[in-house]
């Protein structure tokens, strides 16, 4: 940030991102190899009570399968938490948006449908207000240094260049963009600062950085150097919850939980920390955020 300018009234949001598959919270590396971490409602509740500025549910298989369980998770969460809740995954029509909002979402996140039919962004923003419509851009760096947008959680390439797409998304009326570095997602190597900055500079709507933080310092970095308006965190806080705060939630979790039961506290390159740890770090770095 420029020296000598006051940014006191710019307040960075720390958003708890929860990837959902069926009834479970999952986490993957490079959007592959999903691990079951537990019941999303338990994690969401904890984050809500411990300083999360927003909650963000992403159904990572919704484009492929049906997603009734997500509706139930959203309703259960919305009833108990009084902070904004964004829901993404498989939102393809005005009716899908209406259903998500009716279940208790405050905003919806669109990716695949936006790229396939860009006018859908405009239609959705006109119908529900720009601030309800978040567009996700999943970026993968190409050999020529440009970033291309992918869909279906990084599975399918589109050939769409990311910065141009971000500008178009903003012009079509989206209220926010969440920019995911698929290359960094789940690696712990840190956010892609260059990618985040390019997108944040290119548009005049808020940009949420997502994918890659392995320690709290990475979160500070993507704000001060990457110029992110908000940050989404997942592995960092999920592993902290599992290692330090989890109670008896395994009993209610379906699927493969051997990873959870291994009792580990080290998670590759990732040094877990809580939302409070992150916010204390931001505060020490003179970045404004809600305590």
């Amino acid at each position, binding site marked *: *940030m*420029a020296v000598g*300018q*006051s*940014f*006191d*009234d*710019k*307040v*960075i*949001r720390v958003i708890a991102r929860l990837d959902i598959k069926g009834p479970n919270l999952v986490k993957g590396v490079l959007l592959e190899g999903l691990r079951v971490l537990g019941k999303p409602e338990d994690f969401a509740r904890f984050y*809500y009570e411990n300083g999360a*500025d927003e909650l963000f549910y992403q159904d990572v298989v919704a484009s492929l399968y049906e997603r009734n369980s997500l509706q139930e998770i959203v309703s259960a969460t*919305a*009833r108990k938490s*009084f*902070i*904004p809740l964004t829901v993404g995954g498989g939102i393809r029509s005005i009716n899908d948006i209406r259903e998500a*909002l*009716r279940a*208790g979402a*405050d905003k919806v996140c669109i990716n695949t449908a936006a790229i396939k039919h860009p006018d859908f962004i405009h239609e959705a923003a*006109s119908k*529900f*207000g*720009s*601030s*309800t419509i978040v567009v996700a851009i999943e970026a993968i760096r190409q050999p020529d240094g440009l970033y291309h947008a992918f869909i279906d959680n990084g599975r399918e390439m589109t050939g769409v260049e990311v910065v141009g797409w971000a500008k178009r998304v903003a012009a079509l009326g989206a*209220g*926010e963009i969440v920019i995911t570095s698929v290359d960094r997602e789940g690696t712990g190597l840190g956010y892609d600062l260059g990618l985040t900055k390019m997108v*944040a*500079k290119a*548009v*005049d*709507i*808020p*940009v949420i950085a997502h994918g890659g933080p392995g320690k709290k310092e990475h979160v500070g970095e993507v704000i001060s150097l990457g*110029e992110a*308006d*908000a940050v989404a965190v997942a592995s960092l806080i999920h592993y902290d919850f599992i290692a330090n705060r989890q109670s008896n939630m395994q009993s209610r979790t379906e699927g493969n939980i051997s990873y959870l039961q291994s009792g580990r506290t080290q998670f590759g390159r990732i040094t877990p920390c809580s939302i409070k740890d992150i916010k204390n770090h931001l505060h020490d770095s003179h970045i404004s*955020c*809600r*305590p």
Partner: protein
Amino acid sequence: MKHRVVIIDYHLGNLFSVKQACEHLGCDVTISSSKDDLLEADYAILPGVGAFSDAMKNLHAFGLVDGIREYVATGKPLMGVCLGLQLMLSHSTEFGQTEGLDLIPGRVEKFDFSSRNDNVFKVPQIQWNTIAESRPWKDTPLQCCKSGDFMYFVHSYYVIPSDDADVLSQSSYGGLKYCSSILHRNIFATQFHPEKSGLYGVNIYAEWLKINSKS
């Protein structure tokens, strides 16, 4: 006694979270587009997300412009949230000029930080921001808050009431100090979303109900 709250539905924006907050406080909540329901309410809330001009168009179509004016004339409490606040002003500069409900003299303008040339302050403002007392909050719905408390804001436009006495709190974005809530006779309205601002925010609804049930 259960408070009978009507949330005014003019088919714009999401009413779920406001309903959720009121039900959390034990209210008997009805979501309605009907003027008759509105006039029977003990408390009415005008929420809303979206465009000012669409909102006015829908309110007219449902006969709610007159309905809301009649309701306010009874002296019963009306609360506005976000676009619901903006609609109460005389007019908005969105798309030229659009007439509002004109319950509070003043206008609605869009944030414009283009002269900064640094693209730091994005529009809409989407963030938790602080509110500050611009007149004493004692015996107002904000009496549970203190200056510096964080509330959740999502908006591109802000209100400029003609009379400073209507301004209950101020907030600041991009160095611009603006009105973030108003109290004008039986009308209370916030630019921020109390129902999305944690239990601190939900408490504002509780105070609003409590203060008005006394009178």
